[in-house]
């Protein structure tokens, strides 16, 4: 086997100082060092350089950790998470407003022309909601009938199962891709 040249040994010395030289090469380097004064001197210099840089490190201030922990945002990243209660609360408020408008209309009619206009608007909204609800019910009924038709045959049930599983897998893969893209952007910083 061909022996490495002198420059290769010098490169190995650098790796060795960093603990990055594989064991077999390390043994070979030790053999070379035994007979090469120049490389021994090089190793001494490299170790001295490492020592010099280590000795001249600046000390970290004693209050540094405390300052970091004190300056962390009180709620951290949770602040940026979507609030899980926001949507239900909004729906509740909307329903409450509609209920107040519908069931409070009888009291408002007696209050004057302005209140009557409000009651008329509320009635219109109520009619719209009733129509929407009727349409929704009809749609669900139609969907229910179609679903009952599908599950009545084992073949069509199997097709439906495959379709649902495929859609789920597609959704999961899209989510993963999006997550890794976000992580990559964070890792990459704004270079």
């Amino acid at each position, binding site marked *: 086997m061909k022996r490495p040249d002198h420059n290769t040994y010098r*490169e190995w010395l650098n790796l060795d100082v960093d603990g990055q030289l594989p064991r077999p090469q390390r043994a070979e380097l030790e053999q070379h060092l035994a007979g090469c004064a120049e490389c021994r001197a090089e190793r001494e210099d490299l170790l001295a350089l*490492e020592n010099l*840089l280590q000795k001249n490190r600046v000390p970290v201030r004693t209050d*540094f950790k405390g300052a*970091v*922990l004190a300056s*962390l945002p009180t709620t951290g990243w949770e602040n940026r998470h979507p609030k899980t209660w926001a949507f239900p609360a909004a729906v509740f408020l909307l329903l409450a407003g509609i209920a107040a408008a519908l069931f409070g209309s009888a009291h408002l009619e007696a209050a004057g022309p302005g209140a009557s206009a409000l009651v008329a608007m509320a009635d219109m909204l109520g009619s719209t909601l009733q129509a929407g609800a009727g349409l929704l019910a009809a749609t669900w009924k139609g969907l229910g009938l179609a679903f009952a038709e599908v599950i009545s045959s084992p073949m069509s049930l199997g097709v439906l199962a495959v379709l649902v599983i495929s859609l789920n897998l597609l959704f999961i893969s899209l989510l993963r891709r999006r997550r890794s893209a976000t*992580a990559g952007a964070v890792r990459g910083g704004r270079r």
Partner: protein
Amino acid sequence: MTRGAEQPTDEDLVAAVLGGDRERFGDLVDRYQGRLVNYLFRLLRNVDDAHDLAQEVLVKVYQVLDRYDPQYKFSTWLFRVAQNAAIDQIRRRRLKLVSLRQDDDEGEGRDWDLPSPERGPYGEMRNRERADAIQEAIDALPWEYRELILLRHQAELPYEEIAQLKQMPLGTVKNKLFRGRQMLKEKLQDFLAD
């Protein structure tokens, strides 16, 4: 996934913080503060700026901790954020390239306080000379070598992480570190025997 029985990995600590144990972030600070401050100090050449920016970096990392991808090393991520922040600051502030010695001459005193292994007037003078020489030698390195030398010697990142951080082949990292060290050795030859 702990290393041995007693020492949690960085990834364990991050998971604990994300799970609501905020105090564990203090463990990460303990683990990295020395390397982070020294790495930034060598880039910014000012102890106060290094501490301030190190604090900013840690807060920034905490704020986006939920976006940390555990398939990568936490240290790689941390020092990438630190390097970007340092480069931004150097550009933004147009850091004065005034040597520390000039600060002394202006009567403002040194902006760092290194431990002094050598006591007495001669020892102090030698310490100052050595500290200045190290900073000057690092500053004199071309950027492509300097950044790798600092990531290795101040941030103490292993070669693989440096390669990942700089998106360079491992062989290039080894080669540049080798050359960078040769340049540093030449410039600091007078102090290697100390």
